[in-house]
């Protein structure tokens, strides 16, 4: 298995800008480890076989 690439400051900045947030390099650098952990956990979610399971869009409101 290939080692996961570390997320760059540039990628963080691009994503934040696309979402409409103007965060400084220092602010982005501060959250970089947490984003890295988040992306790793999302990668694990991708491995779960979910087939045709319908997502929960509404609770059992009776």
């Amino acid at each position, binding site marked *: 298995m290939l080692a996961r690439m570390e997320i760059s400051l540039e990628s*963080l900045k691009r*994503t*934040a800008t696309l*979402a*409409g*947030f103007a*965060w400084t390099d220092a*602010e982005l650098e*501060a*959250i970089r480890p*947490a*984003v890295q952990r*988040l*992306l790793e*956990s*999302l990668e*694990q*979610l*991708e491995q*779960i076989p*979910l087939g045709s*399971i*319908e*997502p*929960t*869009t509404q*609770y*059992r*409101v*009776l």
Partner: protein
Amino acid sequence: MGELGRMIATKQVSPVEVVRVHLDRIAALDATLRAFITVCSDAALESARHAEAELMAGKTVGPLHGVPWAPKDLYSTKGVRTTGGSKILADSVPSDDAPVVARLARAGAILLGKLNMHEFAYGPEGINAHYGDTRNPWSADAHRVAGGSSSGSGAAVAAGLTPGSLGSDTGGSIRIPASLCGITGLKPTYGRVSRAGVLPLAWSMDHVGPMTRSARDCALMLGVIAGYDPADPTTSVLPVPDYGAALTGDVKGLRVGLLRAHFTDAATSDVRGAVEAAAKQLEQAGAVVDEVNLTQVTHVAAASAVIVASEALAYHAPWMRTRPQDYQPDVRERLRLGVFVNGAHYVRSQQIRALLTREVDEALARRDVLLAPATPLAAPVLGERETTLGDGPSDVRAALLRCTRPFNFSGHPACAAPCGFTPGGLPIGLQVVGRPFDEATVLRVVDAYQRITDWHTRRPAAA
């Protein structure tokens, strides 16, 4: 609360006297505990005098006539600021009560004030940079967390500053402080209680419910606040049962599943021992206990983080663009993470949610309730980042959320109640999980347990 209500109704005590005693306790203890953000002394005393006059005229308005209470500071209260534990809403004064606040007022309850919380309910420790960190009343030197996000509710009920509270629970925010502070807290089924007028953290995971000293008081409060509300389209039209009548004290023949892997087996040895002992006591009382594992639960932490991060950022985006400096640092960081989650992640997480919900339903098809720790550890020290659980090292925040979050994900009702103490004198919390809209059985089991134990009657020395 029920006992106070009876004593007031039969004129054994005056509501003015009861409110004054609670205000005196707040004045004496809250500088250390920091459980309250706002105290409504004058209004509470005025309401108490009015309640007393009504009583003397032979009128009682409801089961909580003259009984004081205080909600977490994210419930809208007419004319009383509702901060959400934030600087951003420090001066926000709602023009109406949240429907559940109005229901409690109609039942005669008297608002003492508003309780501290993790800022915007986004954290399980209950820390707050703006109004002070709530301290756990069981910690003699006041250096342990009360648990969050409803930290003020947990500390205030435990220390006797209020007999009851309403908290909110997105990943465990009622049950975590209930567990760490040694009180009883119920997260009802999603849709059982209106969330209208309550500041959201994540709409699809938020639940509101009572925090009191006993299952009986939770039943009393739930009976008042539960039911359909046109202001919250997710509330159910199912009739509200008489929760008090369900508290028979009898668990004979009830099928109880002790949740093992991820829950009891992952707890510290003190917690594991206390929860296993509780299961044994229920068995001795006539319940049929077996063991059960939920395999899908391992995905819950990541998937629920995705859902909460997405929904929370959707609500907070305008302030995160204009006033990011006004959030406390840990909350600001969590909100920023929402930017890096995309739509596909969100939908995938909702698929995992469907899987877990199905699995919990299947476990409860053959059992009446499930049993687990409410938290796998007792109250951590303020600022503690790492801990060790039964299955190894863990981040404190993840550890606190570990046993409660699955049932926000699935929407099942779950109640936390004290089931022992560590050798150091910190409370240990049990969690009872039930079928959707079957809060009556959950409360029946907790009440039966509280009839054969006295953990819920113990008080911290400070109180």
